[in-house]
Structure formats: C-alpha cells, structure tokens
C-alpha cells in the first residue's frame, strides 16, 4: 500500500464527511457517510481505510473516523 494511495483515500473520506455535514445531527451524518462508503467503495479501499482508522494519530476527521468505525463493524 503506497502512501499516496492511502492519502487519497483519507482525503476522499474526509471530503465526503465535509460535504454532508448539514444532512442532520451527528448520527445521521455518520450513517450517511458510512452508507456512502459501503455503496461506492471497493472492498480493498474499505479494508485499507478501516486498517488505517485503527492507527493512532490518523488524519481522518471526526465524522469520517466515526463513519469508518461503523463500516468496520460490518467489514472487519
């Protein structure tokens, strides 16, 4: 796994979170982002972001991190 690929995935996840902050309260937004990742990301991308989210000091923003945690419940 290269750095640039991971950087790209992190920035994509953060971007999805940032663009949907107004969908509702935090639970609604987190579920929206998790569902988006589930429906549009390939298996390998999901796995990489889940693995990454479990590292300390990761760069996922608050919502994205929670959404990935939701995703992890299903895919880990």
């Amino acid at each position, binding site marked *: *796994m*290269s750095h*640039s*690929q991971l950087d*790209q*995935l992190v920035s*994509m996840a953060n*971007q*999805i979170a*940032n*663009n*949907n*902050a*107004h*969908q*509702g309260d935090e639970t609604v937004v987190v579920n929206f982002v998790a569902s*988006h990742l589930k*429906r*549009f*990301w*390939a*298996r*390998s*991308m*999901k796995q990489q972001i889940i693995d990454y989210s479990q590292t300390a000091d990761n760069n996922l923003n608050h919502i994205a991190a929670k959404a990935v945690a939701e995703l992890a419940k299903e895919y880990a």
Partner: protein
Amino acid sequence: MLQHYTPSTRDVTKLDPNKDYGTAASTSTTLVTLEIDGVEVTVPDGTSVMRAAALADINIPKLCASDNLEAFGSCRLCTVQIEGRRGFPASCTTPVNAGMKVITQNEKIAKLRRNVMELYISDHPLDCLTCPANGNCELQDMAGAVGLREVRYGFDGHNHLEAEKDTSNPYFTFDPSKCIVCSRCVRACEEVQGTFALTIDGRGFDSKVAAGQDEGFLDSDCVSCGACVQACPTSTLMENSVIDMGQPEHSVVTTCAYCGVGCSFKAEMKGDQVVRMVPFKGGDANQGHSCVKGRFAFGYATHKDRIKEPMIRDSIDEPWRTVSWEEALAFSAERLKAIQEKYGRESIGGITSSRCTNEETYLVQKLIRAAFGNNNTDTCARVCHSPTGYGLKTTLGESAGTQTFDSIRHTDVMLVIGANPTDAHPVFGSMMRRRLREGAQLIVADPRKIDLLKTPHLKDALHLPLRPGTNVALVNSMAHVIIEEGLEDTNFINERCEDEAYQKWRAFISKSVNSPESMESVTGVSANDVRHAARVYAESNNGAIFYGLGVTEHSQGSTMVMGIANLALATGNIGREGVGVNPLRGQNNVQGSCDMGSFPHELPGYQHVSDDVARSNFESVWGVKLDNEPGLRIPNMFDSAIAGSFKGMYVQGEDIAQSDPNTHHVEAALKSLECLIVQDIFLNETAKFAHVLLPGSTFLEKNGTFTNAERRINRVRKVMPPLAGKEDWEVTVALSNALGYPMDYQHPSEIMDEIAQLTPTFTGVSYQFLEEQGSIQWPCNEENPLGTPIMHEVDFPIGKGNFAVTEYVATEERASRRFPLLLTTGRILSQYNVGAQTRRTDNQVWHDEDVLELHPHDAEERGVKDGDWLGISSRAGQTVLRAVISERMQAGVVYTTFHHPGSGANVITTDNSDWATNCPEYKVTAVQVEKVSQPSQWQRDFVQFDKKQQSFLREDRKVDV
C-alpha cells in the same frame, strides 16, 4: 449486410422522411378539407396548398421551397390557380381554406412555369453532363418537369457564368456560376442553423449569395454545418466528396458517433465507400440538421493510421509484433490469468467505451464481472457525467435527463449552466437558438461568455459570470430567493415531493448564509442579477435547465446536480413539455454506457451490485456467481496500480492517457501495469503504454445501438466491413472465450435481447421494435410500451421527488499567491474530445492547436501578447501553450481545450475530484502563467516518447511489407 430504413409505423410520422413536402407541417389540430385537381384532401389548418398537394402525392414544381424552411415565394415555379381568385398565387405561401378548389396543372400554368424556367436557364451553364449535381439536381428535374424545350433568349446576354468558385472550405465548394438565387442556403443558415453567416448581396440582377462581409466561406462566420449545401437545389454548394466521387448509389440510415445529441444520418454510399453523410429528416433527435463533425468529419474511418492487425509485445520498450487474432487473444488471456493467479482476483479490470455501442459496452462489463470475476469496470462517464447519475438518481430517482430535445419548442426560459451547446452540442444549440429567436429568455451561468449569448436576434438574456468552483453557492442563492420571495410551486411540492425532505431543505436554504447577498463575495455575481435570474426562472410558464460538464466536473459536481434538481422541483418545472433537467451528454453513447452497467457499483439498469434480487437475475442468466461489493473506479484503479495491487487492464475505445487528469499520475499508473490491452482504431496515447493492441472498428463498420442524451436508443448500422475483420463486440466475445468464459452471439440484436431480459427499463426494447419505431426513449417496458419521451409526468421512480440539502463547500483548489489564476477547460466546435478522430480530418483547418485564452487584464499584467508562448504551471505539472487574448474570459480565469495530446492540458489538471463519484475537478485548477521560450519538460519528453512508440509501430509494418 446492408439494412435499409423501414418507414416508421407511428401515425404522426407516416410521412416519408425522404420526401420534401415543400413547407413545414402545421401544428394546428383543426382540420380543413379542400379539393386539389379534383382530389379531396384533408389537412391541418395553416397547411400550405403546396404541402396539402404533396400529401396527396400531387407534386407541384418548386425551387425555392423546402419543408425545413419558411415559405418564401420567390421562384414563382409553384404557381397554381384557385377557383374564385385572380391570378396565379404561389402554392407555397398560400394557406389552405375549407372548400378551396385548386388547379395545379393546365395550359396557362404550364406556359407560365416554362417561362420562369426559361429565364433561370438563360443564365445557367449547360454543362449538365459533367456537373457534380448530375443525377441529383432539382433545377434539372424541374426543367424536365415543366417541359422546357428551348431558351429563346440565347446565352450571350449579361450573365454570371464566369463567377469564380470559392474553394476555401475543405468540405464543400461554392460555385456561384450555378446559383439561381433561390435563397435556400441563406434561409437554411438563418432558420435551421441560426448562424446568419450568409446573405444576399446586391439587388436585382446583381443579387448574389455572399458569406459574411463578402469574404471566403472559411473566413466568414460559417460554421460548416452543411445546412446550406443540403438546401442547395443546384450544384452551387456541393460536397467536395461528391465532386470527386460522383453521386452515391445507395444509402443506409445510421447514428453519428460524435456528441451526445445522437444525430441520425443517411450514409450515402458507393459500394462500401461513404460518399457523404446527410442528416436524416426522419431522425427524431436532429430532425434533419447536422454539424461540421457528423456531416463532414468521417474521413478518419479510412485514415492511413488505422490499426489493421492485432499486435503484441512483452514490454512497452519493444517494437510491436503483428500476430493473428488467435495469438493476440491467447496472449491476452494467458497474461490476465497469470496476473490473477499471482496477485489475486481483484488485480485486473477494464474500461468500457462511451463511443462504442450499448451492446459492446454491455459485453465488456459482462466480461469483467463474469470472466474476470470482479466489479472493476468503469467508463469515461466517470470523468464527465458520473455526478449526473448520482445526483439525479438521489433527487428524481433516475440517472437520466427528463426531456426530449424537441421539448425546447415549449420552453419560455432556458437556464444554461456550465455548458456550451453551440460548440459541444451544435445541433441542439441550433434548436436552442431557434427558440431564443422566437422570444424565449436566456440565463447563462458560466465563467465564460459563451456563444449562445451572442445568438442573432436574441431577445432577453442574462449572463451570470460566476467564479469557477462556486456553482453550488450560486444555485443555492437562486433557490433561496425562490423560497424567500414565495415563488415556489406549492401545489407541485405538496403533491409530488416528499414532505420531510422538503421541510429539511426549506429550512436549510432559507438560512441567510445562502442569500445572494451573502454569496456575492463567493460567486462574484451581483446579488441583483441572481435575484432577477431566480425570478425569471421561477415565474416563467416553462423553465428548463440545461447543463454540461461545467456542472459535473467539480469537487461538488454531485451536489450541484442535486441543487439543479432542487430548483426544478421547487418551481414545478418537471414532468411536462418545455421544462425539466437536461444534462447535455458529452460522448455519443455516454448515456448508454452508464445504462449498460459500466460503473463498478451498478449492474445494467442502475441496479446496485449489493441488490440480491437483481444480482441473482444476472447470475442465473450469466451462469456465474457475481461479487456483491463495488469494484474500483478509474482513479482508484490508477492509485492501486501505482500501489502495486492492480496489474492488468482491458481498455476498449477510450484514451485515458490523454483524457484523464494529472497525466504524470496516469502515466505512472499505466507504466506499472503488467498487461494493458487496448482496443482502439488508432495507436492512441494509452496504446503507447500497452502490451496488446487489438484493432477496433468505427461506427460505420458495425451494427448496434447508441443512446443519446434524451435516453433515445438509435440504431447504428454497418455500411462497410470492419477493417480488421471484427466488430468491437466480436473482439470481446473472442477474448471472453479465450479466457474460458463462453460467449456466443451471432448478432448484436441477440445481445440487446439479453439486455432487455435483465434491465427493467429496457424490457420492451428489441431490434424489431426499433425498426418499427425508428428510435425508442427508455424506459420502454410494460408500463411504457412505446417508450418515455418525457419522464416523471405522473410520479417519480422513487415515488416522490426528493429535495437534497446542498451545502456549499469550497474546493480545496484555490487561487493563491503561487498560483493566482484559475484554469478551466472545455471543447470547441470543430474538434471532438481527445481529437483522435477529428485531428485526422480536415477539421484541423479550424483548430490545429490548443491555445490558452486569457483576459486582457491578466495578459497586460504579465506582458503577454497574442501568440506568445506561455508556460502554465499548477501543483500537478507544467505545460506550454500559445496565448490568445480574449474578453470571453473574466479576469483571473484562463481557459484551454484538450484536443491535442502534445498540449498536455491534463498535465496541469489535478487529482481533486467530486466527493460522491470521484469525477475529476477539471474545471478548476489554480495556475500561474508566464512567458517562456521553449516547450515544457513534459512536452519534450512527450515528443521523444511519441517518436519512439510510432517507430515501434512502423518497424513492424516494414517487416510486414
């Protein structure tokens, strides 16, 4: 091999599309009965006598009349007598009346017509035998019809026989010595094309057709659409191909393979050679009109650069080896299997082509899902209209535009956002211009002053020159005005829209942060103008939105599409003629490639791969287990390739190395593949990185269907054999068989039958039904047996319309001190996309290099003059283009096209993308521009690499000879 057009059986088109009825059809529903030569004829009120007669197959001689033009009454050949009226009225300008008795032929009329004809012929060269129109000349036909036997005036008088030819246009010749000044060309340029490039200069005997200010055609405003050539009843305006080859002997109706308008053409043939492409009046999308690309730029099909044989090589640093189809396919299959063995099932994938047919696209994604065993399929829609798919599906429930093109006849206000129809969708651009001349209002939201704003006889127009990247801010502030000022359509919202979503959206959009006044500093558009535009759109009877890649190719592309749908829902501009949300599709079959399941998360018909019911239908027909997880999208494939987990690709008819953003990144990805199979008609930029090159076939060499931007499925018909022996679908079949997944189709119609079986919106589609109907707009199924011209008339596929909250989030790509300008990219009329086709035609005379357009203010600040070489740098890369100073641009924004590979426009675009779909943000790149004296490093490398790869191709051909 050849299939001929069968006239449609629909009542409204019982007309013969190959016959000219002299004047246009009347839209009146009141019927009038009259008598013509003793025959009783019933026609709609407002029909001309000429047309009424023609409908009864009484064909009155005519020269200046044509049913795609307004009646003109100048040639006087169509005179008739009407009982109870004096004189000899022209039948083209005389409307029918109830009980009218018309005589079209008697001795007096015959004499009059002969006299008229005699005058015409007294100033016409009598070189009929050697004239290019011989065999298809209306003047000659009319001379025959009226029985002209002598010209008493002689030919020595004052005449135009020595008038000089104008051969400046590469595709047609203007020979004024043959002109009868019927004005058909001038009127076609005005009424059909809407360019007003031609005029009649002088008076009386000196009247002559002139282009522009009496200049050559090429230097005038002429856009070479061919309408004048088609209108000319003599050989005054004649295709050079007819001058060279003579008249065609048969014709086949097919569909153009350029833009998403999907024009129908008659390919007029001599054997298997195309003599000319003539727009087909029976084509429901284009209704007999064309542009310079479809009409004339077909010569690439027989260009010397065509790849004629399969080729393979072990590494991209080696010359190509020409091999048999069997060897090339076995080599491909072996390599793909070895890669999967070594790196896993998900290590390979493929790209379907939006230039190929529905059937071909369907087969490629089937090959990937069934034979590769993964969902790593994507298509060029990823980089153009994927946000349309996402945004419209979320809000309206279907990933497609809502209207027919023809619906624009009922539009009162056009809101055009991020689209440039007169260049990119020229035939539809002409339809828009016609409606604008009739008085429709125009609102354009675009950083550039597009040509639609310069429509001759435009009545009321408003330009909102927003900053690139601020679409969502603009559309939100328009919606804010609509709610704030109570301009919403409450009935429509109550009856047709989901209330909870609406209330949520309403609360969001009403916030003062979304007001035009708050957003003014973001968009750069005056709040007053935004308020005015919102009122005009909301208060019109029929407001229609048209948009293009200026909407989708942004970090908020999907948000913007939803913002557009919100506007249409809030104002009730959905579900009838004249309104709607109309994405203007870039490539001929980009709608079709999306419909056919090219995306990694969707099976054909937009059925998600995780949908167990849909997937099991495919599994039972395809006989394999399918993956229920989405695959990689194009940019994800590139990232994975560089990371080392993605190693093999099958690319049909798409040039990702030129068209995709951040060229350095794309090239690095392609170089890291162990097996790249490219199927194309030329050695395109991507093929230079390939290990297998499979010859593709052009649209002229195959059977199939394309689906245009109106969801219209049109037949593509083979007029010549494929150069390398296989149509593209046959290559995919052979590759699948080589991989051990058997495919067995004898004809594309069998593929369509399978598509219909598995796609709920296509169940009624078959080749037989297409022959009967001419074309079909999906959904075509039990509920909509004849197809669906206008969508969402009663309800939405998701039940009720769904307002989406569309918060404006600024892109991370911002102008800075280092990169103070914003670059945006687009297309021009004469070239198409990466230019692989049009660069190999005479369209080069209009645009043989990409240039950088910049505002005089930005030019002055940098000491730049027209024609200077400019280095353009972004954080992704640098390239060099020539400067063109243009006031179409706003200060701070520069613009270029990407039609020529050596320009490297995508060397500077970045890998930013739409949050929802990864559609690249082509339309916003922060750049700096400075004068330079030599090409960029990338360009110098490109020239070297290109030279090497071309020699690898030639070396092999030398051996072959």
